[in-house]
């Protein structure tokens, strides 16, 4: 069992966790992920680590409650445990030494790019970070990013906070600024966002690295469920990735494959909600006795 030492709500459906996993923490490098399973009947899901502390033997995860498992995880608090945490998995991020690196995080994708900022600064890059969400609530880690970036831009689609527009819109502005040409872009977030970023940088020929999040089971290359097409070759995100040259990724296929279990996900969610109601009803019944 892996114990949750700290948990903090970052937004209404986004939560930060610090988990005791000394073997994972010892070797973790930026860009790597873990696969976790909450309990005996749980599924295995991949999550990129936002941070790790070798000495403390801890890793940090930032989780958005979307599906059944992430919602269940987000209900957990300090003191609770997770049955299985396996890792660190995937190749670490290739930290490129350029004059100006731009990090682009959409929603909890920001948790993926956040650990890169200090690594890039350490090799001498000027780091601009863009973190965005649909609305103010969904912009996460802005303060944390400020500590490790040279400039930080927050964006919201609805203009409720920071720059009004998408992260790609902000990136377009930065690209237009000829005083500080961009050497590399690292992007993580929803597939349409990464795709939009890559379309922008493609014509400008700016190297763009994306962190992909396909459906995964074992995380060791054994099942091939996470296969993605990169430059007409089939790659396994778990062992070949999770980061790839964004200009070569077939995003249409990736987003399509992510919908494979939409029906089943709905069933799982409805059942979990129903169970939740039952549970509260039972508690209410007990309390009224």
């Amino acid at each position, binding site marked *: 069992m892996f114990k949750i030492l700290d948990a903090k709500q970052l937004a209404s459906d986004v939560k930060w966790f610090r988990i005791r996993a000394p*073997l*994972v923490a010892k*070797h973790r490098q930026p860009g790597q992920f873990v696969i976790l*399973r909450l309990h005996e*009947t*749980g*599924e*295995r899901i991949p999550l990129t680590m936002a941070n790790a502390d070798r000495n403390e033997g801890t890793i940090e995860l930032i989780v958005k409650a979307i599906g*059944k*498992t992430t919602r269940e995880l987000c209900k957990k608090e300090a003191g609770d445990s997770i*049955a*299985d*945490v*396996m*890792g*660190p*998995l995937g190749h670490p991020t290739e930290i490129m030494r350029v004059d100006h690196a731009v990090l682009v995080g959409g929603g909890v994708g920001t948790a993926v790019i956040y650990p890169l900022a200090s690594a890039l600064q350490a090799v001498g890059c000027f780091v601009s970070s863009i973190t965005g969400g649909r609305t103010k609530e969904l912009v996460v880690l802005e303060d944390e990013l400020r500590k490790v970036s040279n400039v930080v831009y927050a964006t919201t689609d609805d203009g409720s906070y920071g720059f009004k527009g998408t992260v790609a819109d902000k990136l377009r502005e930065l690209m237009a600024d000829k005083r500080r040409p961009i050497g590399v872009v690292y992007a993580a977030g929803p597939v349409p966002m990464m795709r939009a970023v890559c379309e922008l940088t493609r014509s400008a020929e700016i190297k763009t690295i994306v962190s992909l999040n396909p459906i995964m*089971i*074992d*995380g*060791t*290359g*054994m*099942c*091939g*469920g996470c*296969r993605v*097409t990169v430059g007409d070759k*089939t790659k*396994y995100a778990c*062992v070949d990735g999770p980061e790839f040259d964004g200009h070569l990724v077939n995003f249409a*296929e990736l987003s*399509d*494959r992510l*919908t*494979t*279990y939409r029906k*089943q*996900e709905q*069933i*799982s969610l409805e*059942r979990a909600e129903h169970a939740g109601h039952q549970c509260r009803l039972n508690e209410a019944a007990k309390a009224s006795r």
Partner: protein
Amino acid sequence: MSMTAKERMAISRQHMPEREPMERNRDFREVNLGFSVALAQLEANRCLQCKDRKCVSGCPVGIDIPGFLEKVSAGDLRGAAELLLSANALPGITGRVCPQEEQCEQVCIRGKKGEPVAVGHLERFVADWARENLDMKQLIGSPTGFRVAVVGSGPAGLTCAGELARKGHNVTVFEALHQPGGVLTYGIPEFRLPNKIIDGEVDRLRQMGVKIICNVVIGRTFTIDELLTEEGFDAMFIANGAGLPIFMNIPGENLKGVYSANEYLTRSNLMRAYDFPDFDTPIIRAERVVVIGGGNVAMDAVRTAKRLGAKEATLVYRRSRNEMPARAEEVKHAEEEGIIFKFLTNPVRYLGTEDGWIRGVECQQMELGEPDESGRRRPVPVKGSEFVIECDVAIPAIGTRANPLLTSTTPDLKTNKWGYIEVDESGATSKPGVYAGGDITRGSATVILAMGDGKKAARSIDQYLQGKTPKTAKR
């Protein structure tokens, strides 16, 4: 008291009690029900106790087959179990999944006229008795102080761990997944090898002092070198399995509904997707499923599809029935369960719907030409013979290639051109004190060959450690 050869010859092969095909093809409980004591004794009596023990040389782990059969026949089940376990650490597993018809039973003298002795079924019987009745602690040797790491808890790893523990070494097994067993757990379905059998064998190893640590990926969580230095292991056995599934590289492979057999079976077996939504992992329950391949994995996948409710579960194989590498019993069981076989058929592409789901497999008729390097006649496409099999799920089960995860982080571990680890006769790799076996050295093979490797490596490791001082003692 002992029977004459004539009396033994008069007994015909006893039928393994099985569940009704049309009942069993709807759930995941085991097909074979097992021998009763009486049936087992009767079948064991059929063994002629030949002087020239062909069956023993036909067995990759060299079980004293006539010996344990004689004890069964005499009703000495404890003696039979001890004899069996002295050669084979996992008899409950091999009794269920070994291709006996190509090994011990193939060379059985009784098979010359009539049917061979049902060695596999008897092995299963004795193993199941032992699991309930035998205390394993008595089999452990006195502690040597040496610590040995085993990478992977599949058939090779578990066998090696058992053998080493018996010699008194302190063994730690590292498993990447959350549950031990490797391919026995994620690959082979419960209707063929119930998880409780694997759990039983694993528990027995734990009783012998073997530590099993899950969620540790060697190559990522630890490197091989760290295990040998910082972690202080004196020797190591690598058996991390075959790895990456092969796709045919034909159009449409990434459509939704195309699974590798590994993924399909992992979802169903390891993650228990057949119990969705009680278990969280989903799997597509399709009306029409096409599985491609002729091996045991293909057979497991197509029978799983049937159990998940497929009305049409079709197996497509590019050669003919005779060339199928699958175990005879699996093919027979699959036929009884209503699996459709299409021989001499090879997929050329997957057809998709507008929204990215598979809707069919376009196939080509094949005919057999000249023998190829495997000695089997090479299938050649028949021109203009294309036809479509409609389906909602397609599962290529055509093999695996080496997993680079461990070898890429261990540069001084020599691999061959396919990426498999090179070993010598003793199982030794290019790294001193590091041995390897199972699919990571030979490519996709069988459970029993992996176990044979584990056994051989254990012997070699034991020899390697002779005369050395345990690292922990030096500290």
